[in-house]
């Protein structure tokens, strides 16, 4: 659905260089701290910015050449952009109806009602949660094959975040061949949603892994200096010096469980794995 090869985008003080692939029927997460390059990556996929190198293919087409028909099949949430805040839902329904062939106004309005979104209120008077829900509803309102969602849960409380994530799960159940690429700096959002995940840091992809592998095979090892010195380091991805000794990231949890039963092996949350991936030294 999306293929990015050696993408290069340079700004004065920031460069993005990455490759990634999103297959139909999958939800791909992009995780990284603020300023890591997630939004730049999404804008490049959408052809909103020019690129300095590499190529981006979206549904078999160069992303800079996406036309009207292609965009009918793409639903988008951008973190800090949407319809003019002076408009109401009542205003945007006829606009969407005129723009998208597959937009179902009645269904959209029912969804708005279900989520408690007022029709006559200007978007600027919506709460953060309401704005986020509206953005996601718009993105999934026209039977898109590809959803590109940049921080759709940003600034939301737990309940609102769950409600947005549920909307996406339901969408994928109804559209088995669709694909979603979703970014978040809240990794727990993506833990139960994504099939695979890319960790982006400083403009580079520092990790790509299937979510179940990441949660099952990756682990954080904690040990003192003597244990570290005696340890087989072949399967250590990252090492971080701590007060107590060392904290290491591995993608071969079982190997260490079997051979080093004396060290502490923690499954680790996605956040912890990410932290050590970003802050640790090469193993």
């Amino acid at each position, binding site marked *: 659905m999306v293929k990015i090869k050696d993408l290069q985008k340079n700004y004065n003080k920031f460069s993005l260089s990455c490759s990634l692939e999103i297959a139909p029927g999958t939800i791909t997460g992009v995780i990284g701290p603020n300023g890591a390059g997630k939004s730049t990556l999404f*804008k490049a996929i*959408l052809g*909103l*910015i*020019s690129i300095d190198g590499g190529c981006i293919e979206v549904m078999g087409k160069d992303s800079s050449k996406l*036309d*009207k*028909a292609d*965009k*009918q099949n*793409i639903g*988008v949430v*951008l973190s*800090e*952009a*949407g*319809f*003019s*805040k*002076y*408009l109401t839902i009542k*205003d*945007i329904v*006829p*606009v*969407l*109806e*005129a*723009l*998208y062939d597959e937009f179902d106004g009645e269904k959209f309005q029912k969804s708005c009602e279900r989520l408690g979104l007022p029709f006559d209120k200007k978007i600027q008077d919506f709460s953060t949660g309401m704005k986020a829900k509206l953005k996601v509803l718009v993105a999934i309102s026209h039977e898109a094959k590809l959803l*590109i969602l940049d921080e759709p849960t940003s600034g939301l409380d737990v309940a609102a975040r769950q409600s947005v994530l549920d909307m996406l799960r339901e969408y994928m159940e109804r559209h088995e061949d669709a694909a979603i690429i979703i970014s978040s700096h809240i990794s727990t959002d993506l833990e139960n949603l994504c099939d695979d995940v890319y960790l982006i840091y400083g403009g580079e992809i520092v990790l790509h892994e299937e979510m179940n592998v990441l949660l099952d095979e990756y682990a954080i090892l904690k040990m003192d200096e003597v244990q570290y010195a005696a340890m087989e380091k072949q399967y250590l991805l990252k090492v971080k010096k701590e007060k107590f000794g060392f904290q290491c990231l591995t993608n071969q949890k079982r190997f260490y469980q079997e051979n080093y039963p004396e060290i502490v092996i923690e499954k680790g949350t996605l956040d912890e794995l990410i932290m050590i991936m970003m802050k640790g030294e090469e193993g």
Partner: protein
Amino acid sequence: MKGLLLKDFRILMQQSRTLLIIVFIGGFLLITGGNLGFVVAYMTMMTSFLVLGTITYDEADNGYAFLFTLPFTRKEYVLEKYVFSTAASVIVWALLNLLFAAVSGSGYEGENMLEAVCILAAIMLMQAVMLPLQLKYGAEKARVVFFLIIGGIVVIGVLFGQIGGLLPDFSREFQALNAFFTSLAVTGIIGILLVASVAVILISFGISCKIMENKQV
């Protein structure tokens, strides 16, 4: 295109209060014996400013980034702005002229018609300059650049007047030009004005398309 027109119309309706103020001031000018031509020019110009203002709404809060993910091309976006602004100005201009013609009971011929067309051509020219400026620089900067251009033209005019004596004598060419226009029937001049307006708008449209194609959002 239809979706974009609907969006802009809805945004324009957000400014219905400003529209009412324009109508109120126009009415006031008429009652106090203002010149009909001036009232038409004022009201059409203000409507045109309001319509151009929809670009400000589009670009606010990173709006372009989201807008350009919707199913239309950047060229269509530009085309819609030209269609919407030209249509709004022409409709307001035509309605006002028809209204005044009906109220005054006099036909719109000769000098009156020429004056009306001159007003429309001037507004089209203003739009043709303002649209690419707004798309390129955004509303605030565009206004500054627009007034700088007007100021620049005035300064050049004044300078030209000052150093006119030093320049080669063009009086014969000016006389010829003057004679040419005098020889034309009013309809001829109106025709030339309209054709020139369309040409300027087309050139402006081409420039705007280039600006938007290269815009990083």
